[in-house]
């Protein structure tokens, strides 16, 4: 396969992302401590460990049910702001009806629906120094690749790169949402914790697919 993705692949994507985020947990908490309350690493680790278990071939539901429930479930790990938004993203991914397998366009539809649900729940937009600065470009890049007929792993690499440069760009932004919003100019200079973890999420997805392709 170069264009198709099953629950097994989805499982590997989330497992790989969970591993990356767990490894960078200290860094994420450190970033959060600059402008927030210093817990983003532990929160994201808890959330990703939940998703790693919830998403994969062991799950007997349809893919859309799986996403919806996993999204709701990840909200239940008490992940503060990022848990609620990540949960919404995953839950929203369950909106488009989907069978047992998806192609690149199918996954792109899921990402798009996830993003829409997130956008319903926060007014933050790119430029506000939040996870949206990574999530929006990642989803857009993936969607463009899917439109252009790129294969999954290439599309995901593009999404990861877009997320990373989005996260990087938050350094020069002033926070307008989340706990950091009260700090004004003091938030200049350090990257947003949530955007950084979204970049890790897509990098994890991409690594899982690359590994698969090369093996």
């Amino acid at each position, binding site marked *: 396969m170069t264009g198709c993705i099953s629950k097994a692949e989805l499982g590997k994507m989330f497992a790989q992302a969970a591993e990356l985020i767990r490894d960078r947990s200290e860094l994420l908490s450190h970033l959060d401590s600059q402008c927030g309350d*210093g817990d983003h690493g532990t929160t994201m680790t808890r959330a990703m460990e939940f998703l790693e278990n919830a998403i994969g071939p062991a799950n007997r539901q349809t893919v859309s049910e799986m996403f919806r429930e996993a999204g709701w479930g990840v909200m239940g790990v008490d992940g503060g702001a990022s848990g609620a938004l990540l949960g919404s993203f995953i839950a929203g991914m369950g909106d488009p009806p989907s069978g047992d397998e998806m192609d690149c366009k199918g996954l792109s539809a899921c990402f798009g629906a996830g993003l829409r649900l997130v956008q319903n729940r926060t007014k933050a937009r790119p430029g506000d120094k939040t996870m949206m600065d990574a999530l929006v470009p990642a989803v857009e890049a993936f969607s463009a690749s899917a439109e252009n007929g790129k294969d999954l792993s290439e599309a995901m690499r593009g999404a990861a790169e877009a997320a990373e440069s989005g996260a990087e760009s938050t350094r020069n932004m002033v926070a307008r949402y*989340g706990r950091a919003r009260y700090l004004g100019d003091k938030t200049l200079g350090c990257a947003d914790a949530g955007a950084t973890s979204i970049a890790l999420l897509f990098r994890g997805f991409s690594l899982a697919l690359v590994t698969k392709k090369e093996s």
Partner: protein
Amino acid sequence: MRMKKFINDPKRLVPELLEGFALAFPARIRLLGTNTVVRATPKAAGKVRLVTLGGSGHEPGLSGFVGPGMLDYSVAGEIFAAPGAPRCIEALREACRDGGSALLIVLNHAGDVLAANITMEAAAREGLNVKMVLTGEDISGPVGDRRGLVGCVAVYKVAGAAAEQGASLDSCFHVAERMNRNMRTLAVAVRTATHPATGHPIFELGDDEMEIGMGQHGEAGTGRMKLKTADETAEIMLEKLLADLGVQQGDELLVLLNGAGATTLMELYLIFRRVARLLESKKIKLARSAIGEFITTQEQAGFQMTIARMDPELIRLWDEPADAPFFFQA
């Protein structure tokens, strides 16, 4: 500095601390499902139930205020992290189980508000009779989007008293809103705490500095200055609060002083002394007060000062009895 806390597995901190809490107050509270604190004896059917949600690590609050005259349900999240919507909606279902209604009181913090909004969406879908109040009185933030600090305790108190007396959901909501509109809080910090799960300090502050405008979780504020005396600190903070609330001669105020964790009651007494004397000299009436540790931030040093303009009904509701583990009056 190594973290020096008596804990076991940091991942099991919240269930363990709630278990200890429940064992310590068996006559007053018990646990419902995972990490939700409820009254040992539920409120009579037909009365509005008060529900709150928020992160842990701030003991005694928020769960310390569950009891007759105050809260019915406190949905406790992880350390400094809001609980998720799934558990919040469960609490609302319980609160409305017999066709009853519930007032959801939420402190304005990104995570709590997100969880609350998702919960309210679900509640609307399920047809539950719920209203939500968002508290936000931290004058270090912009009007319209201020953080919710210890003032929530005053909201629990007056709305709780109204609910206990059988007021309708609408009246409880309006009492809560009125209390919220009339209160202002400012926090100051002088020493950081360590996060019990990460073991790291939650912010950094110079050896001779203090910071005014600190958030509830050690989020940095915006008013860093050299350490001041008790009198100077009280004065700076009170003046800002009075100005922001537009307090006039003859107004009646409630004053709350909330220790952050390591600041001694001794110091809070000194601060309170100055506040009382200043109000006296300005001919503003100190109607009621409460002093102690209500909502802490681990062993952070500092405190929050809240003032609230009281009207006769708010005073009457404030004076009603309450019997929560950490707020008791006859």
